[in-house]
Each structure stands twice: as structure tokens, then as C-alpha cells.
């Protein structure tokens, strides 16, 4: 516990501080660039990108060893991973544009072929008669133990570049994600915008390989965006919420894994991130499951109560069990099915509200009020008392039957 707190307040030694700082920055960039991928509905592409880095790592290692260098040079390995990941992305987009295959099929094919090739290369490397192969397997699930200052510099630079690019291109990116045809007609280079989104994701994937590993980077790109979606209906807010979630979960995750020995960083970050997702899925106030269900239940009760009161007013027989229960609970109905005095007053109010709404919908037609009416919003919530007086004056002029039949 103490170790964890120390890691959280950047007091756990130089190396841990470095890793925590790097991972937090990385989580921020992953969250923000993943948002566009999510909004563009191409979340799976980053899975293919991540898996397609593996053959690049293998090839770069072999090349560097054959040239007599250190096979574990991070810059070299990342360059290799970027090359094959770009090739993978280009292959997907070629397949989509030139055949009738859909993107998901293309992703499936490219992902497995590139990953399989990468595994073959890694197996060959293990059997090569040279040292230093150890460590390559860390690219699968990530490891922060051996992070160097220069690695942190690479991550920081990458993060800053990502955020700058997104600030620069957020409008075209948003437009392409929302309405691609309209974006074309305004003269935006849609291919270039799409390419930039992919390039950002690729860059984030490459720099996070060492920490999170290629299998789990997908989680860091996509989970923050889908988590943020539960909290807001605005795309610009999603950007910042997602980057915040990415940063915080990386920060906590790295601190956790640094404080317990042999706890792998990548998986811990993903678990922290996922718990935020699960929390939001159920409890987010905007779109969380519980809120949605609660609102729906409340509305169902309002509908039943309203129908019950209207039936009381016209002395119809009420048979619906829920309606009867709600009317009794509101003390509008006695046990023997006779309306109480409160019930009669409330029923008259409901009838008046209904009549006022019908007039209001007619005279304020162009104000898009139907949705208020359909949600059973009481009329005095929507209109001022002067407006209601105006509605009432019309109401008294008309015979009641013509009102009840006028709008269906």
C-alpha cells in the first residue's frame, strides 16, 4: 500500500517516476486519438495495426543483428513496427477499395496473416545463435522495468505531436466522422483526414508497444472513448473526457504495477481502464444503464397514472393492475374501486392539462412541442402563466367535443 501511494505521488524512485509519467502521457494521447477512431466507426482497425507491428519488430531485430548492432535498439524496433503496421493498414484499405469485401473481413485477414508471420519470425530469432533475444516477448504484454530516459523522451514527443495534430485537425476530423459526403462537398481532402487519423493511431501504437504491449493497446485506444460516450452527448467533450480517462487509468495502473512485484504494467492499466468503463456503463448520469432504466420506469408510472386519471374522469372501468396500484398508492382510489376526493380533483386536473395541451400544440405548432407533450410534461412547466391564460381563453370559446376530437 505504501509503495502504491509513493508511486502515485512520484516518490518511488527515479525509474518508477519516469515510467508513471510516460504512461500517463501515453494514456492521454491514446484516449484522444482513439476517440476519432471510435467516432469514425473504425475501432477494429487499431487491432489490426497493433498485430501488424509484430513482424516489423522481428525483421528489425534480425536486420540490426545482421548489421552487427544491438538488436534491442528501441528506435530501430519501433521503425520496423511502423513499417509493417503501415503496410497492414495499406493492405486493408486496398482490399476495401478494390474488392467487394467489407472492412471487417479485410481486418480479420490482415490481422491474422501479419501476426502469424510475426510469430514465425520471433521463433526463428529465438533459435538464432546470438544473445540478447530476451526482452522481445515484452512487446506482447508490455514491460516497464527497463524503461530508459530516452524512451520517456520518445513517448513525450509522440504525445505532444499527437495532441497538436488533433487540435489542428479536429474540425475536419469531426466532419469526416459525422458526415463524410458533406465533408467532400466542402472541399476537404477526406483521404488525407482518414490517413491522419490512422497515422496518429499508428504512432500511438508504436510508442506504447514497450509499456502496454501490442495485444492490449487496442484497449487503451478504444475503452476511454466508449467510456466517455456514457457521460456526454457532445463530441468535443468526449475528446477531453476520453483523454482524461486514458491518462488517469494509465497513471493508477502504472503506480499499482510498480508497487507490487511482478505485476505486468499493460494488463493492470487495462484492468483499471475497464473498471472505469464498467462503472460508467451502469452509473453514468447521461447514458448509464441504471439511469436509463430508472427514467423509463418513472415514465411508465407517469403514463399509467395519467391514463388512470383520465379513465376516472370519464368514469371508465380500470382493469390494468399497475394503473390500479399506482392510483391507490397516490390515494386517488379507494380499495373498493371508488375514486376519492383527491382522485376526482386530480382527474379533473389531468383532463384540463390534456385539453390545454391540445390547444397549445395547435397555436404553437412551429415550436416543436410535441416531444414535451409525449413525455407528459405538465403544461405549466413549458408555458408561462400568460400563455396558459391565452390557451384557456381559446379553450372557453370552443365546445369541449371539438377539442377532444381535433387532434389525434
Amino acid at each position, binding site marked *: 500500500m505504501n509503495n502504491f501511494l509513493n508511486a502515485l505521488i512520484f516518490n518511488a524512485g527515479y525509474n518508477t517516476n519516469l515510467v508513471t509519467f510516460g504512461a500517463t502521457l501515453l494514456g492521454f494521447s491514446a484516449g484522444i486519438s482513439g476517440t476519432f477512431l471510435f467516432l469514425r466507426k473504425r475501432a477494429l482497425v487499431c487491432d489490426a495495426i497493433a498485430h501488424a507491428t509484430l513482424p516489423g519488430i522481428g525483421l528489425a531485430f534480425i536486420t540490426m543483428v545482421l548489421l552487427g548492432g544491438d538488436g534491442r535498439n528501441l528506435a530501430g524496433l519501433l521503425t520496423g513496427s511502423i513499417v509493417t503496421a503501415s503496410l497492414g493498414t495499406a493492405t486493408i484499405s486496398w482490399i476495401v477499395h478494390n474488392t467487394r469485401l467489407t472492412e471487417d473481413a479485410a481486418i480479420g485477414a490482415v490481422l491474422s496473416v501479419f501476426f502469424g508471420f510475426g510469430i514465425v519470425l520471433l521463433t526463428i530469432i529465438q533459435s538464432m545463435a546470438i544473445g540478447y533475444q530476451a526482452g522481445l516477448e515484452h512487446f506482447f504484454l508490455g514491460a516497464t522495468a527497463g524503461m530508459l530516459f530516452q524512451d520517456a523522451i520518445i513517448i513525450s514527443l509522440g504525445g505532444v505531436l499527437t495532441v497538436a495534430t488533433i487540435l489542428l485537425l479536429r*474540425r475536419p476530423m469531426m466532419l469526416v466522422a459525422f458526415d463524410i459526403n458533406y465533408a467532400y*462537398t*466542402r472541399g476537404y481532402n477526406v483521404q488525407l483526414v482518414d490517413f491522419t487519423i490512422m497515422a496518429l493511431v499508428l504512432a500511438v501504437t508504436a510508442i506504447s508497444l514497450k509499456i502496454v504491449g501490442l495485444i492490449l493497446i487496442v484497449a487503451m485506444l478504444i475503452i476511454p472513448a466508449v467510456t466517455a460516450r456514457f457521460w456526454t452527448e457532445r*463530441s468535443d467533450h468526449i475528446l477531453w473526457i476520453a483523454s482524461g480517462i486514458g491518462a488517469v487509468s494509465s497513471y493508477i495502473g502504472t503506480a499499482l504495477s510498480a508497487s507490487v512485484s511482478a505485476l505486468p504494467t499493460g494488463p493492470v492499466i487495462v484492468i483499471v481502464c475497464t473498471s472505469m468503463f464498467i462503472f460508467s456503463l451502469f452509473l453514468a448520469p447521461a447514458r448509464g444503464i441504471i439511469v436509463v432504466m430508472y427514467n423509463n420506469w418513472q415514465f411508465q408510472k407517469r403514463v399509467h397514472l395519467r391514463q388512470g386519471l383520465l379513465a376516472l374522469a370519464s368514469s371508465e372501468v380500470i382493469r390494468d393492475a399497475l394503473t390500479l396500484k399506482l392510483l391507490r398508492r397516490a390515494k386517488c382510489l379507494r380499495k373498493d374501486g371508488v375514486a376519492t376526493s383527491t382522485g376526482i380533483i386530480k382527474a379533473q386536473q389531468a383532463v384540463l392539462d390534456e385539453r390545454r395541451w391540445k390547444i397549445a400544440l395547435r397555436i404553437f405548432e412551429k415550436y416543436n412541442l410535441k416531444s414535451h407533450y409525449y413525455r407528459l410534461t405538465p403544461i405549466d412547466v413549458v408555458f408561462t402563466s400568460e400563455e396558459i391564460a391565452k390557451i384557456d381563453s381559446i379553450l372557453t370559446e370552443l365546445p369541449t367535443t371539438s377539442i377532444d376530437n381535433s387532434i389525434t
Partner: protein
Amino acid sequence: MLINVALNLTARDERAMNNYNRSKSALTVLDLTVSYSGKTALFSVDANFPIESMSAIIGPNGAGKSSFLKAVLNITPSLSGKVKIFDMSLKQAREHIAYVPQRTSIDWDFPASVLDVVKMGLYRELGLFGWLTTAHLKAAYEALDRVGMANLANRQIGQLSGGQQQRVFLARALIQNAKLYLLDEPFAGVDAATERIMIDVLKELKTNCKSIICVHHDLATVRSYFDHVFFINIEKVAEGPTASTFTPENLRTTYGERLAATHIEQLHPDASVITA
């Protein structure tokens, strides 16, 4: 050198403006052919839409109406053909064009408010860094007010009815202040109030010397809404002023037997006289 470039640009702009002033045609298309993976969507289509009028593109489902607009705007590639807008190339005329896509072409659960969508009409003008000013915001609210949506400006777009969504799209086009409006099935599946509001806005645009071209499906309203019609079914069938072109023969040629004789008679009470 720099001065030369600047002068050249001005000269070109001036030529473009002169073209616009002289042009009698909002959109001219020559020999447009479009094919999607082996299927011909448009075959050698010529078209000429007059300036400052309301034109309808009519034809059965799969006749290439939407493909025509998309090919004209270079959203989808065409195999051959030439497009002139106010006698300018598409690139030169781009700022004069406002496109209203089919409502069903996008995902309305996208996280955006009504006002956000209208603001997208300003992105080009704002560039990458421009700040939205109060003048921009005022213009956005004015555009929403014209389509009767100002009081829903902050609503999430997914909560709108189909007609309201269509009106938001129209507001986004209005804020561009274009000269040519290209609308893809703007009246498809909308409520009567929306249809009335939109047709009023479009007619007002026409009075203000704008040109409007609609892909249209409701034959019953062609006569009252449009003054120019263009019949299409992969190929061009006919085009011209509604009064002389919206005839039973052209309807029959375009729609084939799909359009029952009684339907035509409804549109043309005197049709039986003509065909008899």
C-alpha cells in the same frame, strides 16, 4: 514574381465572377457515366439546370438520382463526363454550393447537438483555427429559426424526429450562404409541417436568386413545387420546364409499367384525352 501571382489570381477570380454573371445555367452536365463494381448507375447523361429556379430530378428507385448528385459533386468517382457549375469547374464553384445529403446517410446517434451540426456549415469559413464569434452564433440561430428549430438548438440530434433532422440539415446548408442548393430527397419521410416549412424556405431562396436542385420522389407535388424537371432512369429521359415536360408520356417512359395508368390520370386529369 509574387505580384504576378497575385494579379493572376485576381484575374482568374474576376473571370470566374464574370462567368457566374453571364451564366444562364446553374449546372451543366455532359456525358456523365458512373459505374459501381460492374453495375452502370448512370449512362452518358447530359443535363442542363437553369439558374434561379427550382428543379426536380425524378425517376424510380435505382434510377441513379442520388448517384447523379454525388457524381456531380465528385463524392463518388465518375468514369467520364464534364460538370460545369455556373460555367465554372467544380473546384472554382465549390464555395457557391450547399449540399443537403440524404438524412438516412448518417448515424444520428453521433454525439452532437443541433447547434453543433449547423456550426459544421461554418467550418470551411472558419478554417482550422478560427474562433466562432457571436456573429457566427447569431447566424447559426437565424438559420435554425428559418427552419423553426431555434428552440431545439441544444438538443442531442438523436432525439429529433425525422422531419426535424432534415430541417437541421437544411439549416446547415442555409448558413453557407451558397448560390446553388443540391438536396437529396429532402422531403422523403418527413411530416407535413416540415414539408411546408422547407418548401417555403426553398421558394424564398429562389426569390433571392438562388438555384435549387432537388432529388424528388413525390410525383403529386412536382407541379406545385418545381418549375423545371429532369427525368432520369440510368439515362436521361427528358428535361425542361415543368409545364411542358411533366407529361404522361415522359412519366411512362421513365417509370415504365410501374406507374399505373390511374396514377398518371390523377396527376394529369386531362391525360386520358392526350393518350386517347
